[in-house]
């Protein structure tokens, strides 16, 4: 339903997002997780047709968001980070206006208005001036405007930010209720939110995708694993198999080959101390050990960042940020080689 290929957006010399790629299947809910400034908003704005990408492709429902921007925008309901409301309008008046600029026929508007009001719990305030609405109602009205034209795809930028815990639960329930019939991308910097709502998670840090998986797998990977980086002169299949057979090893990933060196990432249970067995294996078999180092798990550092920050906090990044980005970058380049 949504295909994003090597999407890049640069502002001068800074890269807001760097070769971001992912896909979302029809009916899935994808969570964008990452600290502030990771590129979540930029990616969503490109998908929604607000910003043009510097390079790369993005398709929504098979329509290119750059080449056929207007057609793509018809398929998308978008809730920006700052809910775009006209304070002097009434709730119904505003939704009617949004319907018009989404090019809905009058009959369709009349039909959708009560549906959306009901879905978002806005019936009681339908005639209220937006200025008088509470933050929670405004956020729900934001969702309602994204839904009014019955779009196949919903893009929600931080739909729960700035709400009190009770309102957060309401909005989450609402989004959960929409899943299945619509394809949804939502961004957040709150880890539990992703676990509750999303089918898949893309973790962004400094404009790069550093992980894409289901929330369950990610949490498992984050919580209970340690990774060693191993670079040797040569390694045959049998040696890789031998590494895989070491106690505690979960996976061995080939990360790349350059000149006369071969790199691997060995992932193991958190308790397993791999350094010695790996070194012995490499020496015994004459692999030509070049490097053996613990990988300061990039996901883990982001995870720490995400769990130590709660909603609404922003400002400077923790010290782990640059390191996470660096490791993420190294992994990407090796993987591409």
């Amino acid at each position: 339903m949504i295909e994003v290929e090597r999407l890049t957006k640069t502002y001068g010399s800074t890269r807001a997002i760097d070769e971001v790629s992912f896909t979302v299947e029809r009916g899935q809910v994808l969570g964008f997780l990452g600290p502030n400034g990771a590129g979540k908003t930029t990616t969503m704005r490109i998908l929604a047709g607000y910003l043009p990408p510097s390079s790369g492709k993005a398709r929504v429902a098979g329509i290119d968001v750059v080449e056929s921007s207007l057609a793509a925008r018809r398929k998308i309901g978008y809730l920006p980070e700052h809910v775009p409301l006209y304070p002097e309008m009434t709730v119904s008046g505003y939704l009617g206006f949004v319907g018009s600029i989404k090019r809905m026929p009058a009959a369709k508007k009349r039909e959708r208005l009560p549906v959306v009001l009901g879905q978002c719990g806005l019936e009681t305030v339908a005639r209220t001036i937006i200025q008088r609405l509470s933050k929670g109602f405004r956020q729900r009205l934001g969702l309602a405007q994204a839904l009014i034209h019955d779009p196949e795809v919903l893009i929600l930028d931080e739909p729960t930010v700035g709400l009190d815990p009770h309102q957060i639960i309401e909005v989450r329930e609402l989004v959960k209720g929409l899943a299945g019939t619509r394809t949804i991308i939502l961004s957040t910097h709150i880890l539990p939110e992703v676990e509750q709502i999303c089918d898949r998670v893309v973790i962004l840090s400094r404009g790069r995708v550093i992980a894409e998986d289901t929330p369950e797998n990610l949490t498992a990977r984050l919580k209970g694993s340690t990774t060693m980086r191993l670079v040797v002169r040569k390694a045959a299949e049998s040696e890789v198999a031998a590494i895989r057979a070491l106690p505690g090893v979960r996976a061995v990933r080939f990360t790349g080959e350059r000149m006369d060196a071969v790199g691997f990432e060995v992932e193991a249970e958190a308790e397993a101390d791999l350094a010695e067995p790996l070194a012995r294996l490499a020496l015994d078999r004459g692999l030509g050990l070049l490097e053996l180092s613990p990988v300061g798990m990039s996901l883990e550092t982001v995870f720490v960042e995400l769990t130590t920050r709660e909603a609404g906090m922003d400002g400077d990044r923790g010290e782990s940020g640059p390191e996470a980005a660096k490791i993420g970058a190294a992994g990407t380049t090796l993987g591409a080689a």
Partner: protein
Amino acid sequence: MRATLAIAWREFRSYFVSPVAYILIALFLFLTGYFFYSSLIEFVNAAMRAEQQSGMFGGGDSAPMSVNEWVVRPFFYNVAVISLFLVPMITMRLLCEEKKTGTIELLLTSPITELEITIGKFLAGFGLYALMLLGTAAFMGILFAYGQPDPGPILTGYAGLLLLGAASLALGTFVSSLTENPIVAGFTGFVLLLVLWLLHWGAEYATGTTASVLNYLSVVRHFEDPAKGVLDTRNLIFYLSLTVFGLFATMRAIETVRWKG
């Protein structure tokens, strides 16, 4: 088209939510009414004097004094000058408010073009301007009730005001699309119109090509014909091309919002 009208209607109504529209209309009608009253009084006095003189000297059948020349033509000039001040106030919020509050993101992610947004905004301002002009029709009604003004120049005068207004509003809309601060938009718009307005002063001291270029660009020179009751396609083309230029520039300025992010 429907989306354009929706944008125009929403914007037009928003004028009346705040006191802005009421203040502008009241101010406009007060000022135009005052000028109308002054020139009417002057006309009446002059007419009475002329009558006394002709009675005294038995001056036969001199041509009657023209209401159009004494009242209608100065009235249109005055309205044109007043709209120079009011148009920037009409246009200053049009796009800069959307940029300031972030609602421009809603417009730019809806399946509508920048042209539709531009035209919608322009129409809202034009609607308010036309409504203000409509208010002055009452003054003309007074003239028709107590005299026999020539309706032709009145019609061309209004046509001229609408054209002049369209051009000024288009330029004001453009200025509004460049900033997020309504005060800046209003003031810059006013200065821009003032410069266009005063170009013919420069033309008086210039010679040759410079003079004719300045004269051609002067907003005032092109208003002289319609105020006198003359319809000329040159003036029509001048005002329309200025309008199109303003709207085109606005459209481009809205597009740059995307590039700045």
